[in-house]
């Protein structure tokens, strides 16, 4: 009896292993053939590219080195561009978070909103989240002209959807007792949200807000490259002109500011939600 069971278990186990092995082999095959295919489609090959990998960084670093002390003068020159990128990200995150708050309140099951609008608002957020920022930015640049505003609107649109989903998850996990207490005092829906919901969700909202801000700084820098202004536009110009030292300075500025924001936002988030809840 035990032997029969052991045999059956053994058979199941080996079949499972076979499946795992097969799927891993399949994955490996996809990766290998994918890289082969990608290498074929690429204008430069893999091996020769690998050899050239350090050429460009070395070239811009050496040009920066040749500039000597003048290199450091580039930083104050590009500071306005960096501030513009940070402004795009900050405005987009603030406006996005405001819309996300409204959308999330309208799509949480525990806040006594009409049940019919919940799935509708969720689909709207899904669409906003999935819509590529690049398309909105390019369209608005065409209509409004090259300026930071198209990028800010594009990033804010995406942010509303992305934060809205996270915020609604936070809303659904709150303690409803304060809401009931407020209801007993005869307060209206807005007052219940203001005094029952917001104080509970604010720490988590802030944490997600900061995380999003960091992501949006990267997104705004990239959108600058297609004409939205800020450090991306400077970078595209510097690379186009082959100005190595300027490129190096811009790379360094972007890198340092992203790392600084990353560290600062981790620190603040730990402070808001407490180290034990920190994810």
């Amino acid at each position: 009896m035990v032997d029969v069971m052991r045999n059956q278990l053994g058979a199941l186990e080996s079949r499972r292993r076979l499946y795992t092995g097969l799927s891993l082999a399949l994955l490996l095959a996809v990766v290998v053939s994918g890289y082969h295919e990608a290498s074929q489609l690429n204008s430069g090959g893999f091996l020769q590219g690998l050899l050239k990998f350090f050429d460009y960084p070395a070239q811009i670093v050496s040009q920066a080195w040749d500039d000597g002390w003048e290199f450091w003068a580039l930083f104050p020159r590009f500071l306005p561009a960096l501030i513009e990128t940070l402004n795009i990200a900050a405005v987009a995150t603030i406006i996005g978070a405001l819309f996300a708050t409204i959308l999330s309140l309208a799509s949480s099951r525990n806040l006594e909103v009409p049940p019919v609008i919940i799935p509708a608002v969720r689909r709207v957020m899904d669409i906003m989240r999935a819509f590529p920022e690049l398309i909105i930015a390019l369209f608005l640049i065409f209509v409004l002209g090259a300026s930071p505003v198209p990028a800010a609107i594009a990033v804010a649109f995406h942010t509303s959807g992305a934060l809205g989903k996270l915020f609604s998850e936070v809303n659904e996990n709150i303690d409803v007792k304060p809401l009931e207490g407020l209801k007993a005092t005869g307060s209206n829906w807005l007052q219940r949200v203001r005094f029952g919901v917001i104080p509970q969700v604010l720490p988590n909202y802030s944490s997600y807000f900061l995380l999003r801000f960091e992501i949006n700084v990267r997104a705004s820098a990239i959108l600058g490259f297609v004409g939205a202004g800020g450090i991306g536009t400077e970078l595209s110009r510097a690379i186009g002109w082959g100005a190595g030292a300027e490129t190096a300075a811009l790379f360094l500025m972007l890198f340092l500011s992203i790392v600084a924001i990353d560290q600062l936002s981790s620190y603040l988030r730990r402070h808001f939600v407490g180290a034990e809840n920190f994810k």
Partner: protein
Amino acid sequence: MAVVEPSSAMLAETVRVSVKKASAVPMLLLTGVVLYLIYAWNAFDITALLERAQLSKGALLVSDSIAYKTHVTKSFRGNELEVAIEGERTATYKQLPDWVEGTVDSFSVDLGEGYFVRVEGQGLEFEVPGYGTIRSKLVDKKIVTELPEGAVPTWLNARDVKLDARPTFSRRVQFTRAKIEIHKFDYGWENFWFPFNSVLHGKSFGELAGIAASSDRIEADTPNWLFILKSFWGNPDWQHGIVAVALFETILMAVLGTVTAAACALPLAFVAASNFNRNGAIRFVVRRIFDFVRGIDMLIWSLIFIRAFGLGPLTGSLAIAFTDTGSLGKLFSEALENIDRKQVEGVESTGANRWQRYRFGVIPQILPVFTSQFLYYVESNTRSATVIGALGAGGIGLVLVETMRTSRDWENTFYIIGLIIVMVFLMDGASSWLRRKLIAGGETR
């Protein structure tokens, strides 16, 4: 009663004070945000922007994306008359369409609803209902225009070098020293299926099926169904083949990049997790590597890789792989630090070696996090791959930017935008479907 009265008043006062205190922080935050937005309004110079904004340009773009125009061109140098869709040589009418009548020296164009153009030699008459007739002539290398009585409408621009009249969206007449060009707009996407000069142009689906099934070959060495596919695939105006390859490249970038990143991040995450690696110095180094590759950012990585590897999906894949090795490595190492020791100890008590402990005690615990993060990143990288493609890494992003930059045909841009959105939605749907399937009892959303 006399005792209760003051205490309830005191209670109310206490509540009021605490509400005030609780309100203070959000109010301060709100004020800060409002002040910042006022600053940003000035920094972005939105007032000037609103003045400069050309909303009509946007409306034009949208209407142009669902319409196509036919050019009737008379050039003075060669004394030629040509009717072509979008003015392209490959889409020239061999016989004049029925709304153009006459010869190069004297012809008339019927633009419908009473709008009518007559061209005689180097002069034209444009009848506009509700306005009158515009008469223009080329005299001594100058365009002399006679307008009806009254104020000059905004759709009309008559100068010595050029006459430009566009009374409605779908009708436009331009007269320069070199040529007369009349545009007629029609709704629809012309030549979407087959090139204009192809024998298959304008055939219905039924007719096409008939041609595909017939053994009477259009081209001697290819079967008809293959010929139909080839004509569609190689359509020069819409470039279905090139667009499809570009979409494939973008998805390839996202999937390959994320798979590579996950494969590199998993082993490194073990080294970076404090409960698997006791050596603090190595842990520190690996964590800084994660921060470093993440901080460099996809933008910079792709610019460096474009230099080294040229244009194409390999460049995009590597840029995604490098950035996300950092992001996924950080996430995985945090997941590893939060695992339950008991399961590992249980496996250990059966005499399992180190590798078996990892395989049966650790991997099953982090697999849900691993899978869901992996799928989430594949989906989000499809969007990133479109963007870094636009920077020059290739794929559909580059095709989009190129079509927009030439801005020759907005319907092409519109078509590509539609395809990108469909692609992103499909990837989004596939990723959340897989997440639900693979992680039983996990996310129900």
